């Protein structure tokens, strides 16, 4: 992970923390710190609509669009950070 994806990961983790707080999402991790290695699929137990809601916030925040193929391969915050970084380089 280079420094730019690291900082993106931090921002993504913060966005997700805020999202969980605002939406009272009950999560096994709600009291834990969300980090780059947090697996959004297995650890957070977000349903598909919550995932889309969070993705919308991510897209708006970074002004990018996450395509389906990328979405289907994202498991962790770090994976998502990679997608955001790649979109920014284009």
């Amino acid at each position: 992970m280079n420094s730019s994806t690291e900082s993106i990961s931090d921002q993504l983790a913060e966005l997700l923390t805020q999202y969980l707080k605002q939406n009272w999402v009950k999560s096994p991790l709600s009291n834990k710190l969300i980090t780059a290695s947090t697996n959004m699929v297995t650890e957070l137990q977000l349903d598909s609509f919550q995932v889309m809601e969070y993705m919308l916030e991510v897209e708006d925040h970074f002004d990018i669009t996450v395509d389906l193929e990328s979405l289907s391969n994202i498991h962790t915050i770090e994976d998502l950070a990679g997608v955001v970084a790649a979109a920014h380089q284009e």
Partner: protein
Amino acid sequence: MNSIKPTSVNKTLPVKFTGYSNLVEALEYAARGDTGFNFYDGRGRLSSVLSYTDLRDQARVLARRLLSLGCEHGARVGIIAETEPMFHRFFFACQYAGLIPVALPAGIQLGAHGAYVSQVRRMLKSCGASIVVAPDTHANFMQEAVQGLDLLVAGKQEDFDALPQSDKDFVALSTDESAYLQYTSGSTSFPRGVEVTQKTVLNNLREIARYGLKLDTHDRFVSWLPFYHDMGLVGFILVPLISQLSVDYLGSRTFAMRPRLWLKILSENGGTISSAPTFGYALCAKRLRPSDIETYDLSKWRAACVGAERINPEPLQTFADILQPSGFDRNAFVACYGMAECVLATSFAPLGEGLGIDVVDRQLMADTGEARPADGDGASVSAYVDCGKLLPGFEFAILDKNGNKLNDRNCGEIHLKGSSVMRGYFKDEQSTRKVLSDDGWLNTGDIGYSIGNHLVITSRSKDVIIIKGRNIWPYDLEVLAQQTIGVKLGGVAAFSIGLGAHEEQAVLVVETKEKDQDKRLHIIEEIGKSVHEHFGINVLIDLTPRGTLPRTSSGKLSRSQSKQDYLARKTLEHVEKSAIRVVDKQPA
């Protein structure tokens, strides 16, 4: 700047619901008017317009290109059904060319690459597709899904547009042939494709248009439902087609991200007909901003249909309350009941009357199945929504476990017979026989009761787990869990439990002999991960020693007994925990 304009409401063509022998004839008639389909992008901007006239012309050309491939009459064409004009073009090109279209899912969950590819692959194998087409966004997934399958062509739209046009005559699908295959939202391990004939689809379309919705020239449809679901395909492509009406589409993914766009389009275009499962209305209400409400004009929305799962009145009432200032009429709600096995719809509540709620004695219903009207609220009563009268082409029978007819207000299994009941599941005699009798009665598997000629549905498909509009078959969850190391084959029971008033939670009780705490946790994690990847839902996983799941005398696992045992166990744990807390409080 955007200069295209959406198609108007029908101003010129006399409405004609009947007199067609296939979908081609219905399109040929609609193409004489100036209505059609309008597609909106992720920001709610009009991105493309496809009039019935353009659709007819483009579908004819594309049909000639498909014919150049030389596949046999009735060959299957899989179309990954994204909300794009491409779907309509291919669907109707198949109609002209005498090929059978099959809508394939386009929705993909986070991290679910592998699960999606294998789902599409299973469906392609099941229908024996000769041709597959995917939008650009799905092309790579499609190429993975077709690896090693014996197909004529798998390509993108542009690949087909590059084919030469055959000069052979069209032999369209005739009235007794298929119109399309509809995969039910059922089991993903064993996909079942309902064979919908031209005759059955036209029968259902006519009845929905004339009796269910009473459509007229000033009507306009708005939809975000996916085309690979019967409600999206039949309700918002084919019903408008047979009524020569315009439709405005929003992608399903766009709706999930920006549900407010649904109302914006309804408001701006004066939409009169739009449907959603209960959760769609709930999601929209949750994301509304107070400032939006004043800007919408929803006063033309005369039929807000609700179906696809058991209807929960509460979120709908909230939706109506919030949107009253926008002119939304709560009497616009129309409860509907139907299934792909009957094309789409079998009953509609009366138009303009809103939700009819039947309040019954909960305890009596649980004990005897009798739905006796009751006063009061809270825990002693249950409220169910009246789904109205059956369409004229249908009759129902409500039967008990032994197949005896039940009287009014007694819960039993709903059986239907009528003009749009399917011929069967495609090449699946065994599944067909399970639900369809020789004299044409369909066992819906749904539970409900009658009040005169009205139907009330109390639960959909006995076993099916419905979470946010998605039907999940317990069997599929059990199969997934059994693929985890340390879990015994046949030692898993899946079911759902109520979570609050109207939500369901999936539960898996899993037999294992594993005693090591870390390994037990690992099993739970693995199953949870796998279920989330394949279905996008969370499950509660409960491990139990081997041989403890209840089985019938024939050795078959009993899901309902497993559920009762589970609930009893949880109640006991709860009582024990409270007891400990009380003890804790005792002074030392």
